[in-house]
């Protein structure tokens, strides 16, 4: 039995999503852009999926763009704006690389974060105020929930500051890690653009959802047949989109119950580990992060060694992001939060999701305590 605590990397697909998409992998194979009855079946399913998504996000169906994933949404928002309007891109230091590397690529400005990994609102205001007319800030991207440590961004405050100091900038949020834990209808109205990734909420990999509010324009990243109202070309991934919409719907209607259930499991997981082991830091206070993430910094050990022992015991967890070779990179998130290497060397992210059970927590606690004890000998 595998104990899977890496839901923030990818969560198992919801069975409802698999069932909904299967016919479109099989006999309903037509291209929805076609002009025959067979195509219309696919087109109808696609249109309905868009309505389902719009409902869960609190936006109009016309504002929904289907993409290949969270990375494409992030790239489109940052690069698409700078290519369309020029100007300067701004993001925070703890963004996912899908945003951060885009902003760095166009020589943008990176805003500091505080010691819990949340945007430093004063620094954000300062950066926006210091912009000059010849170099206006055209896009600001601030993640709704951090993927490593789970910190929730006060998006209302971010929106207020951006609207005040950079009223013409496109405000984008990478909400990939928010979908399971925050009602997206609370976030969508605050921003101009929002990106999601289906496989983080029980949909398939290779599908993303982007919201781009009416009246906002981006330079497309992909040109071709003009699908998605010319905003994103390429034949629709019909099955994937239907899987994504179905998963989002079920995530939405079960969210409140899941928050309650997972919070209890997560708290027990952390409490039991901290009680059994000295020198374990809960990286971000619980009230400031989503229920699904337990991020710990464990002194006196190295993440790579710990993950190996956990893997040997069939417990799947993670530390930070991996580079192309598969090697673990020192976390830019923890570094930006100002944590010392003494703590960050032993970073461990345990992330919970819709399939996590009480038994998973029991196994994880037992295995982690024993592995850390072995490594500290």
């Amino acid at each position, binding site marked *: 039995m595998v104990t899977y605590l890496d839901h923030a990397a990818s969560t198992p697909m919801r069975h409802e999503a698999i069932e909904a998409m299967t016919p479109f992998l099989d006999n309903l194979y037509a291209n929805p852009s076609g002009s025959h009855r067979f195509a219309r079946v696919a087109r109808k399913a696609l249109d309905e999926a868009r309505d389902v998504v719009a409902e869960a996000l609190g936006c109009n169906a016309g504002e929904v763009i289907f993409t290949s994933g969270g990375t494409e949404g992030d790239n489109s928002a940052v690069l698409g704006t700078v290519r369309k309007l020029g100007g300067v891109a701004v993001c925070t230091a703890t963004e996912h690389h899908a945003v951060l590397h885009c902003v760095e690529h166009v020589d943008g400005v990176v805003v500091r974060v505080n010691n819990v990994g949340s945007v430093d609102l004063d620094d954000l205001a300062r950066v926006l105020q210091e912009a000059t007319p010849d170099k206006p800030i055209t896009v600001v991207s601030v993640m709704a929930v951090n993927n490593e440590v789970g910190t929730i961004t006060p998006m209302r405050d971010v929106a207020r500051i951006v609207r005040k100091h950079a009223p013409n900038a496109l405000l984008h949020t990478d909400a990939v890690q928010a979908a399971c834990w925050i009602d997206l209808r609370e976030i969508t109205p605050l921003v101009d653009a929002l990106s999601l990734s289906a496989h983080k909420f029980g949909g398939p990999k290779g599908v993303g959802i982007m919201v781009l509010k009416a009246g906002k324009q981006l330079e497309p990243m992909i040109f071709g047949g003009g699908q998605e109202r010319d905003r994103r070309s390429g034949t629709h991934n019909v099955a994937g989109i239907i899987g994504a919409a179905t998963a989002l719907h079920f995530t939405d209607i079960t969210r409140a119950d899941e928050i309650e259930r997972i919070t209890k499991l997560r708290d027990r997981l952390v409490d039991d580990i901290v009680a059994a082991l000295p020198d374990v830091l809960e990286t971000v206070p619980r009230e400031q992060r989503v229920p699904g993430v337990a991020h710990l910094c464990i002194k006196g050990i*190295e993440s*790579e*060694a710990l993950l*190996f*022992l956990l893997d040997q015991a069939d417990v799947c967890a993670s530390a930070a992001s*991996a*580079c*192309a*070779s*598969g*090697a*673990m*990179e020192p976390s830019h998130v923890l570094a930006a939060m100002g944590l010392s290497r003494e703590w960050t060397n032993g970073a461990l992210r345990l992330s919970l999701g819709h399939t996590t059970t009480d038994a998973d927590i029991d196994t994880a606690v037992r295995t982690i305590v024993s592995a850390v004890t*072995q*490594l500290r000998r």
Partner: protein
Amino acid sequence: MKVLVAMSGGVDSSVAAAELKDAGHEVVGVTMRLWGGESDTGCCSVSDVDDARRVAQQLGIDHLVFNFSDDFNKHVVDPYVKAHVDGFTPNPCIECNRHLKFDRLSERARLLGFDAVATGHHARIEKDDEGTMRLARGADDAKDQSYVVHMLDQKELAYTMFPVGHLTKAQVRDRAVELGLRTATKPDSQDVCFISKTGGRETFLGNRIPFRPAQVVNEDGSEAGRVEALELVTIGQRKGLGLPGGGPKQYVVDVDTANARITVGDESKLFCSSVVVKNIVWSDAQDTQRLRVNTDVLVQSSAHGAAIPATVEVLSDSEVRLTWREPQRRIAPGQSVVLYEVTNNFVVAGGIACAN
């Protein structure tokens, strides 16, 4: 046994993993990510990691990547740069073995409960009648790598395995072909992994340190030429010194970093009768006692150089003087010097050549 095999993505370590699996060991493969910068095989040598992983998949063993790039910078790259500043000729591959493979990796392996670490080096480890572990040359004379793993002491020798040491390179390749491994025909790596072919040593060092111009003088102090980068000059060097053509061949016989002065002389000035070797690591620490009296040894001072007869005088636990039977060309300070028993089979000790 539970064995952690270091897989570089080359043919030797691929076959090493296969041999261990065949012998019935519980095998896990690991590729160390060492160099994060530019290289001939791409960022963090992704293609080599891919090869190692695909071989591991084919053999049905787990494959891990350990990121030791900080340690690599600290123990290999930074000292490599500093050595050039100080006028030494370093051997980074040996320092990588000393600090990464047979220290950082083996410590990690012990912590994780492995019984041994294995690599694809062409060398052998044998236990003698008294129970002492001996590091022997590999079966393939031309590919022997005992020189580059000479720093293994009794503790590390007891924890290390060289599964292809008893094979010739041709046998290793045959075995890889037989198993259908994708690395079967991959060429041997020759160069320092963090120095790219396009830029070379000059570009690498030039990006990290300011080069100092230096005067080139004859032994009588008269000016003979000029170089732009003192840091790139090695004892014994003959070219690139700005010397006028004609006359007898002139070689670098001294590099004075303090005064930015390079002395050239004829070949005879390169010869010397002895060399002091520091930072000695003994295969068997008891040899410091056994060798107190002057003992004959064979000495190798480059990866595939000849083994030269000398007598050894132990100056301290970590320092010896080697007196050549016949005068020898000076060994560039900073080079690794390895002592073999007179049979030329077993490593006795190794260290770093001092400046005379």
